[in-house]
């Protein structure tokens, strides 16, 4: 088999796993947009905040210690113990649920019946607020995140492909795990929305707010529920991306990777987020592989947007999005 074909196959395989990482971020956007029509600009910052909180709990860091020290002249930094990961993750989930309650109580409740653009602007404000709070709460230094997930080249894939093709493919074991976790996440969300009372209520609100209200579904509860689930998805994305390159403020920029995925997959479809992520992942890796010798690389950031732009021309609602028909 020619080397170019083998390398292209390796790039495709890596694109698929990278696409899953993008889809993990996009899922959070879809959940909130589907249930409330809000494009949550703060989703990337939520991933950062969740990861910061998880590392903070794991390392026994005292929240707001820098602020406390500055005001009271103390030298508090750590509680003196480390929290096991299995305990730190539920504790972080609790913080994300608390955040969802606060967002509903102090932002969404006051913006009922407002235009989508107003709600969007509110999430921009939330993003900046949360970034600042995360900084004051946990500090801005780079933090290593280790939840026990394996990292590095998969020997199994390497050996298997070497035996088949005479060239061992590289796949990061972390990304293989991410694919498995994303599959579990999507399956759980599907089971939750199809087979639980709250899930059905959530779907009812997504379909028609007014009708859902008329049958006694609490909109405020559904919003808390939706933002809580989005918070948990943000935590999963934060763990995956944080394990790759540490937890630091660039983590919030992963949201930029989700936008083209959403344009491709549609803002209201969970399968769309997965498929969109895979298309973007494979597309950008293959484009970079073939175009790097010509343009010198660094194509990943803009290629995803170019692809989304082309898609917008032909299918503005995305692959799986609902077609918007407005009669005049």
């Amino acid at each position, binding site marked *: 088999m020619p080397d170019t074909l083998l*390398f292209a196959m*390796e*790039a495709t395989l*890596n694109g698929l796993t*990278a696409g899953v990482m993008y889809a993990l971020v996009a899922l959070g956007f879809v959940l909130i947009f589907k249930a409330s029509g809000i494009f949550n600009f703060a989703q990337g910052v939520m991933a950062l905040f969740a990861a910061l909180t998880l590392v903070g709990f794991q390392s026994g860091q005292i929240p707001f210690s*820098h602020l406390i*020290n500055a005001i009271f*002249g103390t030298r508090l*930094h750590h509680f003196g113990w480390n929290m096991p990961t299995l305990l730190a993750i539920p504790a972080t989930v609790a913080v994300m649920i608390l955040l969802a309650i606060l967002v509903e109580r102090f932002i969404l409740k006051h913006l009922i019946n407002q235009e989508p653009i107003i709600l969007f602007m509110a999430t921009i404000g939330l993003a900046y607020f949360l*970034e600042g709070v995360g*900084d004051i709460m946990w*500090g*801005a*230094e*780079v*933090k*290593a*995140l*280790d939840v026990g997930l394996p*990292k*590095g*080249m998969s020997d199994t894939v390497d050996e298997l492909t070497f035996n088949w093709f005479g060239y061992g493919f*590289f796949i*990061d074991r972390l990304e293989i795990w991410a694919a498995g976790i994303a599959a579990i996440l999507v399956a759980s969300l599907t089971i939750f929305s199809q087979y639980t009372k709250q899930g059905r209520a959530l779907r009812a609100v997504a379909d028609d707010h007014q009708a859902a209200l008329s049958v006694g579904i609490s909109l405020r509860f559904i919003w808390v529920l939706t933002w809580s689930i989005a918070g948990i998805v943000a935590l999963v994305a934060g763990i995956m*991306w944080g394990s*790759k*390159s*540490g*937890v*630091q*403020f*660039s*983590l919030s*920029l*992963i949201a930029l*990777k989700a936008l083209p995925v959403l344009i491709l997959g549609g803002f209201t479809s969970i399968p769309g987020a997965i498929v969109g992520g895979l298309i973007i992942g494979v597309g*950008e*890796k293959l484009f*970079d*592989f073939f175009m*790097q010798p010509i343009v*010198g*690389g*660094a*194509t*990943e*950031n*803009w290629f995803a947007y170019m692809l989304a732009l082309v898609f917008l021309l032909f299918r503005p609602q995305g692959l799986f999005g609902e077609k918007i028909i407005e009669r005049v």
Partner: protein
Amino acid sequence: MKMTKLAATVAATMMVSAPVLADTLHFPNLSYRTGPFAAGGIPFADGYADYFTLINERDGGIGGVPIRYTECETAYNTERGVECYQSVRGDSPLVLQPLSTGITYQLIPRTMEDGIPMHTMGYGRTSAVNGEVFNWTFNYPANYWDGASVIINYLLGENDGSLEDKKIVLLYHNSAYGREPIPTLTRLAERHGYELLTIGVDSPGQEQGSQWLQIRRERPDYVVMWGWGVMNPTAIQEAANIRFPMENFIGVWWSGSQQDVLPVGAGADGYKALAMHGTGMDYPIYDDLQQYVIEPGLYAGTGDEVGTVLYSRGMYAAMLAVEAAKVAQEIHGVANITPAMMRDGMANLEITEELMVELGLPNFGPAFSVACENHGGSGEAMIQQWDASAQEWNLITDWIAPDREMIMEMVMDDSLAFAAENDMTPACMN
């Protein structure tokens, strides 16, 4: 009546406060403690601030005049950096330290016009070495082209003086900063016969899957990195993932701090980087910092960055600023110097090992002297290597000199082109 009282109070306040402002030496810092590059900006700013605090607390200022230190947040954003410049330019800033090549490029013409010196230590426009063109910009003790040349000289030493048939990849931040070493490495490739492959990474650099797949395919002998922020730990992690030998992976001095290797853990063991100054806390100056700054709680930030690589760099930058201010006071015979006088101090700065010992920093930085023809110092750097088990950087070489003859040719070409573009006649100011 009320207005009269108010006016009198304002006038009195101004009379009281004005002399205080005038009798201080203003050192502003265009810092970044927020945004995606905060992890690098914070320790540098802390080190810069703490050294000035030390001078105020221990020595009562410079030549008896207290230092006034201010910060303006740029978030490593060029537009905000220019806004910060606008906000400090009327407040007698003695020297600007923007810690961003992008901001530096924007400020060079502005500082030239306003007569404000700028120190871009190990970053910025490399050809600012030529003080006949860039009268107000200084980039001692080393610049990017020096760094690139030092790495190649180190690799020559490791390969019995020949890099013939070797393949070297430059993995660079796709920005003005990251592209700076390309001309030097290209010219050195022609001279030493190695193959150079340049691979860009878009900012901030969190996603480098394609780049490292390509590196794996190309099987280079060495990878040289020009990264900043999250690009560094991501690249080191990716290198560990593909099992690239870490001892053959060398970063510039902006890719060689604790923030770059700690998130990677054991995988970063053996990674190398340039060092333009010493590392660690085994220097007498830390005793003074402990006594006058840390213990009394006067430290900047959270105080937990003391002794890290970037903290040391900020402290070193402040030390060089203070020494230049002393030279300026000596030249002009006044303690309360102006930005123009500070420029003279910087242009006549001489750092000797005796002075470094006196300052509590023996063998911390290279000895160098500044002249109109050379605003760039000696250009020397060392190589440091990360020990993941001990979690510390170890210096593994002595000072390595760059190929200054070749670099000066490039400096002259670039700086004279700048002068021609801007209708300037190159000339020394002093």
